[in-house]
């Protein structure tokens, strides 16, 4: 009993760091920039619409404006959803002082298994409802199992996290490709694809999933002893161990959560594309996710987890990219500008935190 009290004592001080004035200033800084980008886009879209549609009466111009805004909103939220879902798992892993390079490979595995289920013989034997449930549950179990393997390597075999997840990064995508010998699986399955193409209340399903993941993870970090354990391990693993934190179990759990969330992201990507492509599913997403985490104010050294910060970081990167491309900057050059923006954001974060 006393040991767990001590453990929560350690982590409470760390948690206060994220909720204190500095943490607020950091979050509001990004929030302000996101707001500026949003307002800029409001005006930009209005400008384009009113310039191109001067010959139409004003009522339809407004309708057109609202339609364009809605479209822009949906495009941004849709594109950011998978990065945020993966980024939340990454935030937890990074908070323990680790890193997860395997996220893209796990996405590819999950995305490859789902069509195998509903296109294969199981799909013909059972009804569509059962098959689709299986096509969602089985990949999630498998991806959690891969996460478990990551956790096993990190905690039991004592691999450095970057090496352990590098093993899965290299081998995992290979496994995904071997499942279908590298071929695409093209399909049309409205039930399964509701995951991405469904529009409850006009908003894509994956946006709901994204917010659910963010809210749950935020509660997990802030309101549960598990969350405090995560932060205390990242803050000082040895002290956490001495204070009686079940370090190995918590670290393993964090990699399992990351794997599970990657599974969700992989399924969403497959559902959007109506095809599973093991070569491209989740390629380089680990870099986007890590950038989002870093811009969001979670230091890569661990001990702090700002889940909402990761959401804001991902939104910021996405909005910056969207704005650059929509004002006519070529995609390739947008990559360069985006890199500069991330560097500046991380530098400013560092300035404020020190």
């Amino acid at each position: 009993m006393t040991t767990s009290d001590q453990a929560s004592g350690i982590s409470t001080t760390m948690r206060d760091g994220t909720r204190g004035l500095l943490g607020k200033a950091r979050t509001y800084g990004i929030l302000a920039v996101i707001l500026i980008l949003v307002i800029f886009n409001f005006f930009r879209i209005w400008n384009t619409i009113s310039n191109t549609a001067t010959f139409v009466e004003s009522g339809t111009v407004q309708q057109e404006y609202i339609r364009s805004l809605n479209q822009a909103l949906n495009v941004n939220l849709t594109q950011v959803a998978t990065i945020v879902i993966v980024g939340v798992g990454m935030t937890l892993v990074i908070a323990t002082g680790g890193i997860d390079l395997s996220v893209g490979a796990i996405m590819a595995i999950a995305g490859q298994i789902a069509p195998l289920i509903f296109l294969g013989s199981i799909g013909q034997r059972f009804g569509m409802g059962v098959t689709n449930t299986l096509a969602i549950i089985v990949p999630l179990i498998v991806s959690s199992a891969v996460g478990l393997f990551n956790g096993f390597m990190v905690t039991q075999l004592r691999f450095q996290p970057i090496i352990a997840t590098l093993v899965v990064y290299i081998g995992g995508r290979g496994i995904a490709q071997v499942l279908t010998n590298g071929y695409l699986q093209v399909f049309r399955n409205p039930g399964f694809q509701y995951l991405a193409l469904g529009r409850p209340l006009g908003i894509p399903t994956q946006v709901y999933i994204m917010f659910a993941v963010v809210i749950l993870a935020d509660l997990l970090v802030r309101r549960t002893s598990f969350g405090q354990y995560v932060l205390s391990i990242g803050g000082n693993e040895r002290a956490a161990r001495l204070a009686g934190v079940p370090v190995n179990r918590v670290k393993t759990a964090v990699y399992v959560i990351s794997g599970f969330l990657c599974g969700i992201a992989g399924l969403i990507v497959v559902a959007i594309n109506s095809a599973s492509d093991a070569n491209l599913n989740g390629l380089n997403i680990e870099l986007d996710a890590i950038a989002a985490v870093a811009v969001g104010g979670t230091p890569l050294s661990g001990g702090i987890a700002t889940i909402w910060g990761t959401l804001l970081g991902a939104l910021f990167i996405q909005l910056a990219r969207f704005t650059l491309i929509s004002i006519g900057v070529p995609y390739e050059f947008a990559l360069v500008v985006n890199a500069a923006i991330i560097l500046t954001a991380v530098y400013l974060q560092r300035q404020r935190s020190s």
Partner: protein
Amino acid sequence: MAVTQANSTPKQGIRGFMSANLFQNQGVLVFVVLIVVFLAGSIIFGSTFYSGYNITTMLVFNSMFAFISLGMTFVIITGGIDLSVSSVAVLTSMLAAWFSRFGLLPAIFVPVIVGTLIGLFNGWTISKLGILPFIATLVTFMAARGLALIMPKIFGIYLANLFPNVSWSWVDYVADYSIVIDRSQNFQAIIGNFLGLPIPVWLILIAYTLGAVLLQYTRFGRVTLAIGGNEEAARLMGLPVTVTKTLVYAMSGALAGLAGVILASRSGTALPTEAVGWELQAISAVVVGGTLLTGGKGSVVSTLIGVLLLGLIFNLLNFINVGGFSLTVYWQAVVRGAFLFIVVLLQSSWLRRNR
């Protein structure tokens, strides 16, 4: 008896030197594995495997990884990481292809200089701005890839629009997404033979010898090791930490530039989509060689052995053909991951036993 006594102090005597400094203990082990794998391959697959053609091709192909891994070894010894090497290599391969029409020297030096500059930038953001190596080099990873993608447009369209009166014969060499090297300038001579061995192999031997000497016998190398051991302590001792770290990243960039030159010269056409995942390949080679990612320890020669072992094993995989079943690239990725797993597993249990 007297000889063994003389060798008992670790820093003196040739045997202590070999095991402790040059190879590190794991390097010797990996070297033995390398020999065994080579002999096994030669016995199983016969002359098609150990033919000069196969070995030469393999060495030239792996020379690119060897250059990158050399820079990566130094970076990792300081406790950092350089993710940008693959993008730097692809950007410099585009530059090498384009500058190949101005002769051999610009085609080699411009890419190497650009690589060095990107490395200097990495070093500056890491040591001066205090940004973590992972993020700092991730940023140049993105930016350099973006520049590589836009390179054909810059040389093909922007320059031609800027100087419409000049006749640009080289525009023909620039397609939408690639730059073809100028074969009339004999650029591909740099992967040709010299004294019986391909030039990249000579370059590797020179680079690794210099690297080993640099790490073991110079002040620079000592400071590099000290930074990885304990950066704060090194700074307090008055060692030039900032300068050394910057130079280490610059060196990594320059070597990635050299790899880019060889890449362009090997393929004849520089594509911005090449060299994906090279940074991870280099990290694997460094890890297989026994250099710890925590920094402070490491050996240059072990890294070369790591590169050769990885290269040899993946070369062998191409030969496997049992009853019509050959390993596809996808299976090779699985084997690659499993292999890295086994090596790291052996390394960690071996380290624990020897502690």
